[in-house]
């Protein structure tokens, strides 16, 4: 009995949870990061890794005969040394070298001067535009929606799904 009450209370508090602005920003950032992803799924050959038959990355496969012994040695040297750097490291290196001069950071355009436009997060139609006057905001997560129907879909599917 006590257990049951407990679980109801948890459920209730979850359903009424309101995301603060930091959580909303975090959620937005995650969504943007997802747009940069090369793949959504996992490597379909991941389970082959263990097997000897599996093609390894470092090897060239089906590229025809080439690459003398000398090259092969060089190549592994190169990879080990200076040129294996991730994006963040390269960016830091550039900043140290260029300072305030034009570079990767300064080339990025600033935010737009035009007002942001709003769309229903479910159906994608504009909100708060003269022929699309509806404009509601989800109390819990801040998403926009255009109608009761879209709000229902939103609550059933996405509303707090992505919050961690």
């Amino acid at each position, binding site marked *: 009995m006590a257990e049951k009450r407990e679980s109801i209370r948890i459920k209730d508090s979850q359903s009424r949870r309101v995301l603060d602005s930091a959580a909303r920003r975090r959620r937005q950032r995650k969504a943007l990061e997802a747009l940069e992803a090369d793949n959504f799924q996992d490597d379909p*050959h991941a389970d082959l890794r263990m097997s000897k038959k599996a*093609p390894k990355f*470092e090897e060239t496969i089906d590229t025809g005969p080439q690459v003398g012994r000398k090259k092969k040695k060089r*190549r592994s040297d190169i990879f080990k040394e200076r040129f294996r750097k991730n994006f963040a490291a390269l960016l830091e290196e550039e900043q140290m070298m260029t300072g305030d001069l034009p570079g990767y950071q300064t080339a990025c355009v600033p*935010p737009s001067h035009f007002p942001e436009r709003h769309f229903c997060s479910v159906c994608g139609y504009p909100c708060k535009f003269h022929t699309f006057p509806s404009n509601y905001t989800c109390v819990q997560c801040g998403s926009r929606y255009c109608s009761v129907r879209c709000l229902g879909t939103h609550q059933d599917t996405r509303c707090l799904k992505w919050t961690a």
Partner: protein
Amino acid sequence: MQKHKVKLAHSLKRKALLQEINGLEKKAKVTNKASSSLEDDANGRKKKSVPNCVIKAKTVRNRIFIGDQIEDCKDLSGLYYLLAFQKGYLINWEIERQVWDYIFGKSYLDVDFDDTSIIITEPYFNFPSIQEAVSEILFEDYQFHSVFRCNSGFLTQSKYYNECKNSSELCCLVIDSGYSFTHVTPYYLDKKIKQGIKRINVGGKILTNHLKEIVSYRQLMVMDETYVMNQVKEDVCFVSLDFFKDMEIAKKHSTANTIVRDYVLPDYTHIKRGHIRDPEDAGTKPTGSEQIIRLNNERFSVPEVLFHPSDIGIQEMGLAETVVHSISCTPEEMHPHLYNNIVVTGGNGLLPGFKERLYNDVRAMAPCELDVRVTCSDNPVNYPWQGGVLMSEHSDFNKQLVTKAEYEEYGYNLCMERFDV
């Protein structure tokens, strides 16, 4: 005198579209490598782009596919991509080397390195250590006879000025809207004006991923189908010339909605390639096991992100605003020339309506006394490559290169001096 064959490499990113280039009659053998690779030999035999990636297929477990080898794969669903580029910069050399080995190798171009010059393009503000790595690998590893490195905009401006020979233009504004990002770069003659180079972090990849995302949410789970959805994008998306009007049309029902399209997804058994369903069949039920998605406001709200990144929460200027911003960072006497010589390159230029919308938006924001002109060739992807072909034929070409002998004598410093990347 030695006659060098020329390789032209282009380090855009993966481009899932393979294109046949016709009508090039060059003696030089040219490759537009990284994202897209074009080849042309004396007989005009093989000329095409090669995707710059390594692909794993769900159904084929005993091999991987490098570049255009994916053409051998019968089932293109759920492809898994390995890309050497991250945010548009070459980060993973293991992958890139596999692609280069394949393209330069026996089964493809069969390059005679001792007798071949390569032109390779790199993104603006390419990181110093990547630039060094490119030089070192081309000279020391592949042992090319000579190398020329530049931004693709450099090749674009030379092609562009060549086309408007008669008017003797002094400036142009190069827009390169590719897979990873979009750059706007002002050129005075062949020199880029660094403080005017502007980047929007929106490219074809984000558009395809956004399309995947909204279709998956609204209709059918297609998050794993990057290859298929990229084709959907290329087949149905367009840049709206009147966004809110098109939204109104898309909201209408039956025949009043002239925007909605049904798209038949490939199943790789009966349907080898996805396609728009014949509008005649619109009212009828799909036959058999056809899987159909309906594209409506998605058709133009996806490319709209290029013009309004903030629509999806990317707090950056849109393309037209960026054009105005970029030009405002150049000396004032250049402004009339730049507004009048806007040239579009990159795969997103293939979206129907791109050029017209860009013109409309820039026209609306530019000072009214200045003329605005936007050009975009039928093949904006290969436009820089064509500039590379022109360059390789020019009598000055040998002076712009760094040869292997020079590299060995003077080292990488000479590359830094001679190349403006």
